[in-house]
């Protein structure tokens, strides 16, 4: 058999296999028993909340077979805008609502903290708030000024508008223009890979992610803030100073389906899902 012929056969087989998989997976949604929940919910918003919301949605769907819950991303402001306009049933927002968003109701499903991270080989044990502010505003530029080696600090900051940045600025009483950054990142993982690849970098990311990565061998470590260790336990008991709520937001009166989903998402039945995403479930 010539090469082209065998390749053709292989690709035909692959296509047939794919078709079989498709047909096997396609199944109509079972008819709902009388009085059970049915319909479709659309959630849009923060990509931080999205993986958690998607897992909660899957568990909800398994309990209510006639319901479809679609989770989409687009950012926290998309979540707010869509909830307002009615384009989405529920919005996902990775921060507390602002005063001008008082027309929406927030339902908190988890807490997340923000921790300063350094490279694993960076010997500095802790940084005070003043030192952090000085590093981020460019007044301190070398590690030896805070007790480390004589190397230039690489400052990693989050992009404008991200709730992590706003929390950081709010806590340290800074304005966005004050920060002198060497690298600006968008996602948590980008921050982790940047700091892991640079022994002289400093950054800040979600506590849960930082805890996971440093436990799995990525070259980063966390430092305590104002004397409090950045652990999920400290976020849960509210000792850790820098934390934010992950919210589902709605507008106006809730339909039965919306009510059921939000009740499910804020209940203790999904606490294991929250923890597996490295967030902190709210205490009952």
């Amino acid at each position, binding site marked *: 058999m010539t090469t082209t012929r065998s390749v053709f056969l292989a690709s035909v087989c692959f296509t047939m296999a794919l078709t079989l998989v498709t047909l096997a997976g396609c199944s109509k949604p079972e008819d709902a028993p009388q009085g059970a929940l049915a319909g479709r919910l659309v959630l849009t918003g923060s990509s931080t909340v999205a993986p958690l919301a998607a897992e909660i949605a899957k568990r909800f769907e398994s309990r209510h077979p006639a319901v479809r819950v679609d989770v989409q991303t687009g*950012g926290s*402001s998309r979540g707010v805008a869509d909830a307002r306009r009615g384009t989405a049933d529920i919005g996902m927002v990775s921060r507390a609502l602002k005063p001008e968003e008082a027309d929406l109701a927030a339902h908190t499903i988890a807490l997340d903290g923000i921790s300063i991270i350094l490279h694993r080989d960076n010997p500095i044990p802790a940084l005070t708030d003043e030192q952090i502010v000085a590093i981020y505003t460019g007044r301190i530029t070398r590690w030896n000024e805070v007790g480390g080696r004589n190397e230039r600090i*690489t400052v990693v900051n989050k*992009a404008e508008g*991200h709730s992590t940045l706003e929390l950081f600025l709010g806590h340290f009483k800074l304005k*966005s223009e004050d920060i002198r*950054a*060497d690298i600006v990142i968008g996602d948590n993982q980008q921050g982790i890979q940047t700091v892991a*690849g*640079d022994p002289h970098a400093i950054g800040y990311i979600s506590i849960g992610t930082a805890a996971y990565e440093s436990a799995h061998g990525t070259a980063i470590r966390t430092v305590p803030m104002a004397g409090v260790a950045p652990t999920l336990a400290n976020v849960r008991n509210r000792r850790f100073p820098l934390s934010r709520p992950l919210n589902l937001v709605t507008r106006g009166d809730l339909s039965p389906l919306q009510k059921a989903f939000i009740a499910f998402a804020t209940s203790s039945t999904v606490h294991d899902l929250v923890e597996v995403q490295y967030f902190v479930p709210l205490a009952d």
Partner: protein
Amino acid sequence: MYPLPTDAILRKTLRTTAAVAGGVMLLIFAFLAIESLPALRSVGFARFFTDPSWHPAGGAQVGRFSLTPMLVGTLTAAVGAVLLATPLGIASALFCAFYAPPRAGAAYRGLIELLAGIPSVIYGFWGLVVLAPLIRHWQPPGQSLLAGVLILSVMILPTVALLAESSLRSVPRAYLQGAAALGLSRWATIRGVALPAARSGIVAAILLATGRALGETMAVLMVTGNVARVPGSVFDPIRTLTANIALELGYALDHHRSALFVSGLLLMVMTVIIVIAAAWSGRRHEHA
């Protein structure tokens, strides 16, 4: 040449398809213009170039809306990438078409076809994890204009190489046989006969590659550092117009969001200028 009446239907059908293709661009232009209008009205066109920096949160009066650093970033990254990828791509095409033993040429082309399909996320991730630390050893911070140029070159090289190779292989056999009959060496044939005959294909390849380099979002987002400052050297971080939109769109409200669409509009206008310039210089060459 073709007076048959059935061909009139063909001509009309094809004309429609061409119009659809052109129509898409107009729709996108209109979309960007509509979304940019709020910011253009409240912030004013001039401020997008004269403000001191890019800090758009805080409303139309208080915010700073300068797109100049991002404009410089996009231009330098794209021009650098095209300057690097064009010779490499044409050389690759020459390798496939003329210099390689037959099986090696086919394998190499398959390799380049695969390079064309690797998602930009993978390129970006590789750049973030492998390339940027390498550059950092040379000169911190690592995520820089240089990293952006290198990654973009690898991404647009397949476009240049594949299209150029296809054009070179389509050069009429008679031309090559004529050159051989005249006793020209392989390189002389390539330089004097094949490359000029494939010129329009190669120019199209470069234009498509330039477009791709200007519009790439995900990969440059991960490797260029995203600091909204005009770079002083190739090792400085830059932010491109595309990365600007991708980074901030998810969290931007009102004027900030509209300002991001202005940067998209600016990018499109820039592309139009480049395309018109290329077409104009091409026509001058033809008359020469």
